[in-house]
């Protein structure tokens, strides 16, 4: 495969746009479950955020390879949902084993949320978007990485806000998920401010 300069540049642009203008969490609202439930502490959300960046980038690349080299030649494109999920599940299992071996502390901290990455819609969503948008391999890697970083940014911002929120007075009816959803909405609004940054993509 020839890597043209243009392709790398395009991958870079897609990456930046996935972080800011097309943030997978704040524009498409994918991956909300862990976003709301693991964002109580900055430390744990940083851990989960890195796990998501890693898994998202790797699964996007893996899924691109299986899609374009297995499903397309066999004309089995309609199977991509199942195939992507299997690949993601296997990969998360692998990461879990690796983490248990290398960083028991992070493994314990992430606890149930690590296996739950499997069913994090952001991961599957990114793989499906890459098919719909017909990205090339390099661009896909950029897109996966950018989506992961975007998700990471959103969750640590959320965790930071929620840590501050602990000491503030919130009306009873809004405590917990209520206020978290409102904050998510406001953050999404703020991110639309990036909309004009990358024109002519």
């Amino acid at each position: 495969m020839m890597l043209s300069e243009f392709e790398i540049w395009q991958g870079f642009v897609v990456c930046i746009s996935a972080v800011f203008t097309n943030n997978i969490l704040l524009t498409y609202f994918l991956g909300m479950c862990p976003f709301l439930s693991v964002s109580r502490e900055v430390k744990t959300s940083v851990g989960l955020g890195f796990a998501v960046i890693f898994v998202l980038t790797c699964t996007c690349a893996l899924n691109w390879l299986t899609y374009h080299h297995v499903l397309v030649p066999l004309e089995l494109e309609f199977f991509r949902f199942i195939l992507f999920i299997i690949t993601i599940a296997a990969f998360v299992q692998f990461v879990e084993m690796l983490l248990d071996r290398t960083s028991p502390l992070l493994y314990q901290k992430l606890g149930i949320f690590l296996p739950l990455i499997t069913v994090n819609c952001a991961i599957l969503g990114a793989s499906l978007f890459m098919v719909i948008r017909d990205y090339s391999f390099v661009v896909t890697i950029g897109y996966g990485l950018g989506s992961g970083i975007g998700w990471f940014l959103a969750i640590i911002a959320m965790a930071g806000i929620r840590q501050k929120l602990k000491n503030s007075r919130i009306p009873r009816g809004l405590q917990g998920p209520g206020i978290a959803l409102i904050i998510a909405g406001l953050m999404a609004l703020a991110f639309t401010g990036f909309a004009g940054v990358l024109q002519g993509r």
Partner: protein
Amino acid sequence: MILQIMLAVAVISSIGAVLAALLTVAEYFLANYGPCEITINDQREITVQGGSSLLSTLTAEKIFIPSACGGRGTCGLCKLKVAEGAGPLLPTEEPFLEEQERTSNVRVSCQVKVRNDLRIEIPPELFSIREYRCRCAEIIDLTHDTKQFRFELIEPETIDYIPGQYMQLLTPVDEKSGEEVYRAYSMSSDPAEKNVIETIIRLVPGGICTTYCFEYLKVGDEVKLNGPYGDFWLSETNAPIVFIAGGSGMAPIKSILHHMRNTGNKRKATYYFGANKVEELFLVDLMRQFESELADFRFVPVVAVPDESEKWDGEAGLVTEAVTRDLKNAPECEAYLCGGPGMIDAAINVLKELGIGEERIYYDKFE
């Protein structure tokens, strides 16, 4: 059409199979920690297969660490000092560890995984913990709801323990829950009788283990006990002793008194025994016998509400009231309490008011 369906199924299955195979290979390399060496108290070294929790690894090596929850990380009893190799403190351990324990490397052993060579410290008394096969030799009714059980050891034939410790009795598989149930009972026997374990059990209505002991256990039956556990025992000072225990709480006190007689211990001792009614007093004759055989021992039975019909000329009222009235030199004394949590908490408050420092109050709460 059929061909395409077949092809689709074959492709997806083979991709699944390839991924599964990759995972198995990964697991073989990643989850395989190989043989690990555990150094215990800088004396003994055992080589084990890594990968499981420290608690279960030690249990497999026949080293029993007390654990009430069976390794689920909810009781925090299986704490051990792990000097080297345990890795960072895990969030699941934090609730069980005091600041001082954290700095001295105490860990919850069911949460620590054996990944590499470890250096651990096990309190020496835990090494004597074993499982004992026993035969129920005698059941004596002490009161309407309290019985004394005598078990003769079959295998191993003798037991060494410190008077005041307890054993866990294994109740055979419960029909309802299908689980084996362990319950702790203090030994009441004379520690000189090394082939016997005696205990005093009070019926807990609805309790799995006491119901078994009271309704199903017969003389001649075989039971399994493991132990000894616990750190409720006599200190090695010469301070006068105050024992406070009612009901089945007499068990460890009785064992301690036997031991004091055997060793010719001359410490001054007073035992306040609380009961609701006169008919709930038991083993009074034995206690009177201890009074004559021990150097300076006094048994003070206290009855809360003596019936009109029962002639009672001893102390009346709550046991804590009797202690307040009777105990003269409280600040010099050491107190040993045994019984239910309500009685213990009340007694600790009264003893502190009387001037006994908290560090001189020892207790065994029956919970």
